[in-house]
């Protein structure tokens, strides 16, 4: 299974089909994608750009019958631990471990000698921003992804250890559903206890070798083992800003707009440059211009670009990326009219950055400016915003320039946001009623907006 940013499950399934060649099943527990692979494909799975975390399924129950009482249910979970088909999954985990070590030494390649079939596993959506630095080598870092459901992990206080190689583990339990008699804490504790008994592993919250996942969503129960140690979602960014988007979300947005060869792609509010950088790496047949008005933002962007280029140079490949950075004012872009093919950006959120009031004024003027530079007829925009009301309102006033084509709902840092795919109409800028009206009566428009605000 892999976890993906909620809303982008189909994108992930597409990438999986494209790069691994298997059909993926999207779990109704949002944010998860399941797919079957043989272990020789494990390495490729780690290269997927739209997935956050990977797990291998130990067992899956679609209609698990929970007992009535809490005690009985927990008892059953404990018994479950010793009856599960661990062998295959553990074998995959072992092979994955050697794979990661190889990755650490910058040598790719699969290690599979035997090929047990494994069911790929999904994971939970990590929606909080995490501040740890991603490294090329996998450093053991305990992470806690959270989902829409409650999430917790636990450990047992006892330890036994004999045998030369003592394996340390922890159990993470995600539970969703209102008919359960127990909490995820309790489930993790009891299940974990039984696992420990069965394998004689040592429980350790922070320095663990194996992470066992217990996922309960209404009647669906999945037990899995983690294959990724750190979330893949911050892979490109070494210099964070306050609201850096995770790479998997950037990738999802880029796939949505389907960049073509020689497309000119602008991010006029780039922040730390996460989106254009992901584009320059993964969809490198297009050209990216990252811009922001803020000093720190443009400098961080350049730092991030340099960091990646250095990494590539160290590996011996050509380091140059098709990306540039400019400092500009988004409402007055120093760009030739109709010269841009795609605009892709994360628009300031009312709550996380900027303010609601500012958005009311900002959104219409920046949408107009974006329409001006965007190529009529073929141009597109992919815009992420949490301020859906303000955005929808602004867009509805620009039917002559922008048409909504598709919307994806996502979860960013615990907040619900929308990714809007817009098409630029064929209308030439400066001739639609909106811009003529705007340029003549800018003051009037603002007044009108204020009235709406009072009403709504």
């Amino acid at each position, binding site marked *: 299974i892999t976890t993906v940013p909620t809303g982008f499950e189909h994108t992930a399934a597409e990438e999986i089909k494209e790069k691994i060649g298997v059909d993926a099943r999207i779990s109704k527990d949002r944010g998860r994608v399941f797919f079957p692979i043989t272990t020789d494909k494990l390495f490729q799975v780690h290269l997927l750009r739209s997935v956050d975390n990977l797990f291998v399924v130990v067992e899956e129950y679609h209609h698990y019958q929970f007992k009535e009482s809490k005690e009985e249910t927990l008892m059953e979970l404990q018994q479950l631990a010793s009856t599960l088909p661990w062998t295959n999954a553990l074998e995959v985990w072992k092979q994955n471990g050697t794979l990661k070590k190889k990755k650490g030494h910058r040598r790719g390649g699969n290690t599979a000698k035997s090929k047990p079939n494994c069911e790929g596993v999904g994971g939970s959506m990590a929606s909080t921003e995490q501040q740890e630095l991603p490294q090329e080598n996998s450093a053991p870092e305990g992470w806690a992804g959270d989902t829409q459901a409650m999430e917790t992990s636990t450990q047992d206080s006892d330890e036994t250890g004999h045998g030369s190689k003592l394996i340390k583990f922890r159990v993470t339990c995600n539970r969703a559903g209102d008919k359960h008699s127990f909490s995820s804490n309790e489930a993790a504790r009891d299940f974990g206890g039984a696992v420990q008994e069965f394998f004689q592993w040592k429980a350790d919250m922070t320095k663990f070798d194996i992470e066992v996942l217990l996922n309960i969503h209404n009647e669906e129960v999945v037990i899995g083992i983690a294959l990724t140690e750190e979330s893949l979602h911050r892979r490109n960014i070494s210099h964070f800003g306050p609201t850096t988007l995770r790479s998997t979300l950037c990738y999802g947005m880029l796939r949505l707009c389907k960049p073509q060869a020689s497309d000119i792609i602008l991010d006029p509010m780039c922040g730390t440059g996460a989106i254009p950088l992901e584009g320059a790496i993964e969809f490198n047949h297009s*050209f990216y211009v990252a811009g922001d008005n803020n000093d720190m933002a443009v400098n961080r962007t*350049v730092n991030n670009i340099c960091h990646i*280029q250095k990494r590539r140079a160290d590996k011996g490949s050509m380091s140059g990326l098709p990306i540039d*950075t*400019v400092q500009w004012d988004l409402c007055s872009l120093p760009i*030739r009219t109709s*010269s841009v093919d795609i605009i892709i950006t994360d628009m300031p959120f009312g709550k996380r950055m900027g303010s609601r009031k500012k958005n009311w004024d900002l959104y219409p003027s920046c949408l107009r400016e974006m329409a001006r530079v965007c190529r009529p007829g073929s141009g597109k925009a992919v815009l992420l915003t949490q301020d859906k009301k303000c955005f929808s309102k602004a867009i509805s006033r620009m039917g002559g320039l922008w048409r909504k084509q598709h919307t994806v709902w996502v979860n960013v840092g615990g907040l619900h946001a929308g990714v809007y795919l817009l098409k630029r109409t064929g209308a030439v800028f400066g001739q639609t009623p909106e811009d003529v009206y705007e340029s003549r009566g800018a003051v009037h428009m603002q007044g009108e907006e204020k009235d709406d605000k009072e009403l709504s």
Partner: protein
Amino acid sequence: MKLLTHNMLTSHVKGVTKGYPLLIKATEVKVNEVEFNPQFVSRMIPKLEWSALVQAAEEDLPGELVADYETNEEFLKKVHRILLEVEVLEGCLQCPESGREFPISRGIPNMLLNEDEA
């Protein structure tokens, strides 16, 4: 700043009508290796303001595009180098009409205007 980007940048100082192309005054230039993709270059050429590129490149690029440039690999490689591999790290861009200079530092052109210019 790469020359491909320069090809799109204009001066937007208030009142200026001929703000393109910006004049490049470079004090530090770097050349980076970027993977060559002939399709990228040949598809990009029609999107460019060719004369502005010729002016910016200061190298012998033909003033007019030859026919069949799409298949002329040597030509495409030359254009590739000029568009993507040459970078202006320090210097400035000058508005051809107002003379206003926009500084370039660490490869980043600062196109922000003062209040009275906007």
